[in-house]
């Protein structure tokens, strides 16, 4: 379980992770040393997405406000849009700070959630199949997402978004190899 370590190591990684761990511990303090963060560009992608969403949200009241010349509506629309954008802007960083993934002997771990935290283990030999996907914004930053499908129901597909496409492919091949070698 060491072949996936060589890829992208972000300089800000160590800094922010130590800060975060000191601040509040519990589930997060149990993370192993080989934990990986998402790619920092994923923050940009998620911020651009919120910008687009909030612009669309602003659009409807703005058009209605201009057409009917009720500028209060316009103001409210703008305010709501701005609020959503600000929250999304901050949250993008926050959720990045609180998301890790790592491989262990038993499978792929994903730790996420700022307030409600969840550590999910996808055992290697429970992986049915994996998808690697890439959205239009992801393409610009060479990011991708890895979706792991199990035979389960509630967590039937566990996705890891905001990693390099290259990393996604690597993880996928590790998952496949490990899954097959287990088939005794």
């Amino acid at each position: 379980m060491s072949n996936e370590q060589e890829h992208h190591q972000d300089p800000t990684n160590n800094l922010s992770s130590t800060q975060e761990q000191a601040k509040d511990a519990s589930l997060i303090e149990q993370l192993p040393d080989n934990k990986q963060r998402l790619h920092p560009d994923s923050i940009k992608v998620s911020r651009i997405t919120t910008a687009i969403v909030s612009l669309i949200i602003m659009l409807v009241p703005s058009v209605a406000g201009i057409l009917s010349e009720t500028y209060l509506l316009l103001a409210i629309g703008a305010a709501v849009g701005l609020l959503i954008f600000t929250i999304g802007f901050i949250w993008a960083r926050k959720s990045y700070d609180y998301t890790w993934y790592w491989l262990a002997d038993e499978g792929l771990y994903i730790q996420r959630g700022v307030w409600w935290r969840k550590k999910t283990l996808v055992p290697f030999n429970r992986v049915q199949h994996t998808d690697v996907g890439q959205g239009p914004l992801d393409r610009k930053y060479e990011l991708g997402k890895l979706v792991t499908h199990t035979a389960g129901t509630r967590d039937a597909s566990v996705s890891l978004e905001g990693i390099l496409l290259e990393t996604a492919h690597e993880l996928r091949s590790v998952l496949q190899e490990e899954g097959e070698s287990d088939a005794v």
Partner: protein
Amino acid sequence: MQSDTNGYRLHKISPLFILFENIKKLIFPIVIALFSTRGSSWELFALGFALIISLGAIVQYRFYRYWLEGDKIRVKEGIFFRNVRQVPYKKIQNLNLVQSPLHRLFGVVKVQLESASGGRPEAVINVIDMAAVKELKQKINGEEEETQEEEIAEPKDSILSLSFGEIVRYGIITNRGIVAVAVFMGFTMQFLDDQIERLVKNYISQFTQWIDGLISSVQIENGWLYFTLLTLIGVIAALLALWLLSIVMALLKFHGFVLIKTKEKLQATLGLLTRLQATIPMGRIQSLTIHESLLHRWFKRIGITIETAGGVNNDQQGVSMKQVAPIAPNTMRTQLLKEIQDDVDWDAIEWKGLNPKGWRRVLKVMLIIGLVVGLPTLLYSIYAYPIWLVIWGLYSVYYSKAYIRSAGYTLNGEVIGFKDGVIFSKCTFVRLPKTQTIAVKESPFDRRHRMASLEVDTAGAMVGAHHINIPYINLDEALAIKNSISDKINGTQFKW
């Protein structure tokens, strides 16, 4: 009728049953079409429609064929869009037989083959005769167990058979009538117009007048008392009617329920009018839940349901056989569990409690709910709100203590179990090899007390159903449980 090259055909009568199925599928469009084209020449439309679907049924029958090959069944169907499907015998999870009174008249049966794929049954054979079913079963079950399979389930060698009284008890306990009434109401609401509304109101007023007559003959003229009595009688009458409906529904569904065990399979036979025979391979059981509601406890009964990986999860899509023991005496609990899952040592189950401090957290949640839910009482009177809060508070204290006391989990080398619930107590077991993903979850409130919850995902679980989701345990405990499960399944391939 059968040769290896041409494959097996359906029974000659099957166009009739295909026709019924088609009509069932089309009944809503037809009804709506009839209502919307009121006054125009709808009879012609209906006639044309009927003609087309009956012709369709015959053609469908002509084009349906299946082959029993060495290790798989091949099904060919379709007129314009040909569809050939191959299902290996090994992948077939359940084999279900449906026989309505009409089926019985012609000595035929509808067969449903389920694999682990979600949604609909893998193949539906509508309809074949008993000889063909026998052949099919032999192929699927492997050639060796030919003889004993075909005997009709005798209650004597069964694991569980339900008498009339037991089914009545099941009806009273589960009270499925409520669901039926709700569905019916929801349905009629859509078509509700003034006429029906007036009709319903008329009935209600007639009913009240009738009771009125009854009561005034006893001569109570006090307004307040009279009103209370009237509501009381109304409620009791409604409850009785619901129970009666539930009992009738239970009888229709479970009359003559017999569960037998042959080798690796459970076989349940049930139904009053439409007989149903479902086969469940025991190794494929993903999780097992014991239901023990307040009413169950009064009658000293339990109910056992299972989840299989077979995709059929509701009755619309096909037959689903989850209720492996709809109702059974509590004394049979261990015996039944041993029969259903014989690879688990049921005597070695030891329960561990949740964190005892957890009850305060349950209490907090309950109190917040009470504060919000009680708000409308303020409209009635200022005094009602505090009274409500006191009553709710007392109940909450009782509830949260009872919840933490009764909830617990068990974990050994073979199985993980979780039980909780005060009124509707449920207890779910998952054999460790059947776990999929494992998650340790930590809410902000958990963090303050260094607690966490642990959730285990399995195949075939219904969303919202009781599952392994252990709350209010220490974080270290949750991580330890996670580790021991993952150690156990590490290196074992998942076998449906």
